[in-house]
């Protein structure tokens, strides 16, 4: 570790103003502050410092995402073997290896495009590189289906980093979740690669790994639920749904892996338990409401727990609704914000057959309303205090 620090110190002069690698200052700065907590302190005013800075928080979220990533990888291989009818003859590590071969290019593209833009902007503005993309860049490959081509992923990432983040002033200033904007962009611009029944299972051989399956189609559990034949056609056991062995976006399928991440986020206090809990409460409340009011709607009649474990509900609730930048800031506001996401997600799933998955749109909608929720909470508090004051006198 000492050697790394010494090496960083040795190459530092090259990157400073006048050095020969001046153009890569932001890159060096980003790497240095990522590896070591920066030593410098604020020059003016009184500042409260947390024990960990935002780069360390981001690293924690990345660690929390790892279980979903690994299960997602395994699931890619598993679904591929399932499509080829060779689950019994394929070893688990072969499935994992195949999953890695499919997933790695997506992660590389997402990071390369996003960080490329981030470094360019930071260098151009003469600012420090923002760390937010560390998490976003890993979430983006996890919320798209395996069939999403890399060039579309690259365009969508560039679009969202520029228009959802940099134009607002970078990390911490964006009003909507950047990873979800990437998904929404793909969803509206290239609907054929993110919906339908051809994109959820990888069917190509890569470097001799996996199986070549032609003309295979397989809908997600939610699409089955909204379809004619109902969830039974998906042929899934509850344990499959919990472990995540079903077609879906790469990282969203496994409830258990997401729960592991959630435990880490809650234990370290990075994510707010209030938001997370109220998303589930909102979802359950809306499910129960529809169960009694819409007896003929097959989606509404599914038991409420299937709604929670299918699709992106858990992933959204744990990793996206709790994004501290775009969620409500006030403590009361977090309950309202979370409840709104859960309720809206189920509302879209049940009442709009065009969108079998409502979580993305629900979170984006509540992201936009979050400042308004905060405003109302603050104002009602101001009024309550004013009333208390006048009563006393």
């Amino acid at each position: 570790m000492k050697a790394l620090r010494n090496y960083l110190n040795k190459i530092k002069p090259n990157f400073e103003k006048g050095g020969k690698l001046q153009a890569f200052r932001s890159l060096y700065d980003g790497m240095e502050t990522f590896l070591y907590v920066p030593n410098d302190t604020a020059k003016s005013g009184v500042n409260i410092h947390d024990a960990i800075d935002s780069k360390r928080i981001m690293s924690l979220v990345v660690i929390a995402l790892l279980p979903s990533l690994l299960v997602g990888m395994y699931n890619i291989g598993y679904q591929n073997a399932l499509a080829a009818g060779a689950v019994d003859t394929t070893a688990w590590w072969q499935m994992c290896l195949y999953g890695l071969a499919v997933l790695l290019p997506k992660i590389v593209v997402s990071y390369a495009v996003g960080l490329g833009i981030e470094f360019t902007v930071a260098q151009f503005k003469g600012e420090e590189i923002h760390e937010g993309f560390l998490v976003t860049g890993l979430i983006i490959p996890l919320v798209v289906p395996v069939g999403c081509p890399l060039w579309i992923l690259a365009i969508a990432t560039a679009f969202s980093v520029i228009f959802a983040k940099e134009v607002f002033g970078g990390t911490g200033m964006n009003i909507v979740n950047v990873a979800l904007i990437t998904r929404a962009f793909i969803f509206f611009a290239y609907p054929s690669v993110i919906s339908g029944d051809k994109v959820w299972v990888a069917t190509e051989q890569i470097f001799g790994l996996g199986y070549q399956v032609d003309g295979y189609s397989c809908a997600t559990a939610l699409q089955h639920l909204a379809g004619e034949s109902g969830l039974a056609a998906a042929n899934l056991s509850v344990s499959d749904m919990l472990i995540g062995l079903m077609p879906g976006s790469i990282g969203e399928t496994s409830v258990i892996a997401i729960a592991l991440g959630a435990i880490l986020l809650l234990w370290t206090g990075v994510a707010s338990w209030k938001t997370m809990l109220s998303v589930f409460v909102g979802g359950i409340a809306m499910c129960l409401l529809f169960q009694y009011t819409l007896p003929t709607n097959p989606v509404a009649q599914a038991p409420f727990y299937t709604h929670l474990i299918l699709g992106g509900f858990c992933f959204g609730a744990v990793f996206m609704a709790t994004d501290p930048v775009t969620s409500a800031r006030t403590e009361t506001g977090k309950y309202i914000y979370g409840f709104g996401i859960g309720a809206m997600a189920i509302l879209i799933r049940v009442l709009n057959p065009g969108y079998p998955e409502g979580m993305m749109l629900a979170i984006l909608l509540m992201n936009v309303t979050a400042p308004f929720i905060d405003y109302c909470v603050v104002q009602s508090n101001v009024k309550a205090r004013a009333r208390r004051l006048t009563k006393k006198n």
Partner: protein
Amino acid sequence: MAALFSKKNQEAFSSPFLKNNPVTVQVLGICSALAVTNKLEPAIVMGLSVTVIVAMANVIISLIRKTIPNRIRIIIQLVVVAALVTMVSEVLKAFAYDVSVQLSVYIGLIITNCILMGRLEAFAMQNGPWASFLDGIGNGLGYALILIIVAFFRELFGSGTLLNYPVMEKLGLYEIGYINNGLMLMAPMAFFLIACIIWVQRAKDKSLQE
């Protein structure tokens, strides 16, 4: 002759193209810029229609500007514009029926286009007919310019065609997995494109930065 192309008149004609563009600087006429720009052809027709109407309305109002009672000037301007819009609409129906169907209500809605009322109020009411004519032509073409730029990108990336010529297909892009961007055909993308044009323009011209 020199007076016809005086500095002031040249200015009236040329400034709407860039530094006083009705769409990107004054942010007028956005509604139709979103609505008719998903194909290049209707955008060109729309741009030309607005140019003709602004120029003629400017000339007519400028000619009668001294006799218009101040209190009812808006009504009179509207009557003139409405008459011209109806004429253009009829001409389009007669000679370019397909395009007029594509443009549907937006030709009629030129009446409510802010650029028209803006030019009549701000320019034609104070200036002579020749200067007003140049101003109208300039503003109409400035508007058309932005429409055409936006429509170019929307049609090329949204439908893969240009003036209905299948560009992307001829380039063989579909065979290597290219897919048209459906978002380009929706109105939000026109917002993004206009925003990008405004962004580039203001980055280049410091005097426009607020």
